[in-house]
């Protein structure tokens, strides 16, 4: 007699608990899928053990783009460079952010990236802002897109709820993500040095 009630109670409490854990209940905002930006097929096999506890933020140090059309071309350029010139199995980042305010799917949540070397790649998601942010900052819409992506990661169980954000220069010897962007991410709530 009490078991369906107990089940209901348990379900209610679980949902309540999940609600408490989530930072904000916005659904995942659209990510431009690989097919749409005409990605070369990936030959990467190494999967990620989810959820990961870290996000590494970098910049491509290449050209920025501020329209969906130009960003689509730019993501292709980045992938071409990584695959054709550098010989990697795919673009090295899990996701890329354009100044058009859109997120572009790289290796995605499930496949290990090659963005931060050694042990970090197997324990983190790498997101990269397309552009060079030493002397200028990305626009607000790009930063919002990145934050939304990370919230989405938590909602999907790809990121731990207490994930940590690190700058690329925190984990490798590099200027990435650029002085200006690095200063910004240090103010993010999940940033940990």
């Amino acid at each position, binding site marked *: 007699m*009490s078991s369906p009630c107990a089940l209901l109670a348990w379900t209610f409490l679980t949902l309540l*608990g999940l609600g408490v854990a989530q930072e904000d209940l916005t659904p995942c905002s659209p990510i431009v899928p690989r097919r749409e930006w005409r990605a070369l097929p990936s030959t990467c096999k190494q999967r990620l053990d989810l959820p990961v506890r870290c996000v590494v933020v970098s910049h491509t140090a290449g050209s920025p783009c501020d329209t969906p059309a130009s960003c689509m071309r730019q993501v292709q350029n980045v992938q071409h460079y990584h695959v054709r010139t550098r010989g990697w199995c795919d673009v090295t980042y899990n996701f890329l952010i354009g100044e058009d305010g859109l997120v572009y799917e790289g290796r995605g949540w499930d496949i290990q990236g090659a963005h931060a*070397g*050694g042990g*970090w790649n197997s324990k983190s998601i790498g997101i990269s802002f397309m552009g060079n942010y030493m002397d200028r900052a990305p626009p607000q819409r790009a930063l919002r897109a990145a934050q939304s992506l990370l919230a989405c990661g938590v909602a999907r169980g790809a990121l731990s709820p207490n994930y940590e954000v690190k700058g690329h*220069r*925190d984990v*490798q*010897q590099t200027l990435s993500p650029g002085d200006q962007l690095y200063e910004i991410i240090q103010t993010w709530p999940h940033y940990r*040095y």
Partner: protein
Amino acid sequence: MRKAKLWGLLGMLFVSELQAAAGQAEEKKILTEGETLNYHCVYTRKHSQSQKAWQRVMDGGKAETLAFTEKTSKNSQELGGRYFLEDNTTQGAVHVRMTNVQMSDSGLYRCVIYPILSNPEVLESLRLVVTKGPSDSPSPDKNPPRDKAQTTTFPPATKAPVTQPPPKSTAGVSRPGLEVNPTHVTDVTRQREARVPTRRKEPDPSLSLQHHTIASRLNASQWVASQASGLEPAAGGEPAAGGEPGPCPGTLVRMRTRNKALNPAEARGTCWRIFPWKP
């Protein structure tokens, strides 16, 4: 009564949320006996100049330091018996290697900054679970056995004492009374043959140690590996840049096997330490 249950559930949920928020998350790795743990402890650049240590955390919270990286060399290794640390400061990761894991190795480990403070700075935590090897029941293989090398782990998870880890007090690579000279080898032979009837598992004849060759081939690597005589892999004598295996330090010897069931890569490259047979 029901109200109490509901409050109990609510309380549990609250506590679990708290635990999720506070403290360090643990990684988890599951291995079978005999395998080698390869683990990367990552750290940010603020620790690139620090030494790191690998600890085991006992029930009750007390931690035991198993190995730590040396101060002098940047990419350093620390020989601690079965624990090897290699700190790659450019990559921001310590490569931890634990050879020949046993079920007794199951537990909680962590990478910390060395020297270790009373409130240690923990880089990463790892929960290691070591399961029994496939010696008792035929377990399905992930890879189809193209050749037998895939199906057995080396050394196999038998009940032989060869699988026991050496006592922690062993400092260097040499053990007292184990000089590999012809006299001692004969002793080992006699001991081994005397104990044959009491052994619980018959050794594979293709694995038998050819004692008569030991005396004449102490520096070479022409032996056939044997589990039953109490051999365990040890460090040292890693292949030089040219690919030729280097000489083994001290009382270690290099093994080669004709038995295709053994993983040839494991057997050939390793230096082996001989210790007395204990039934």
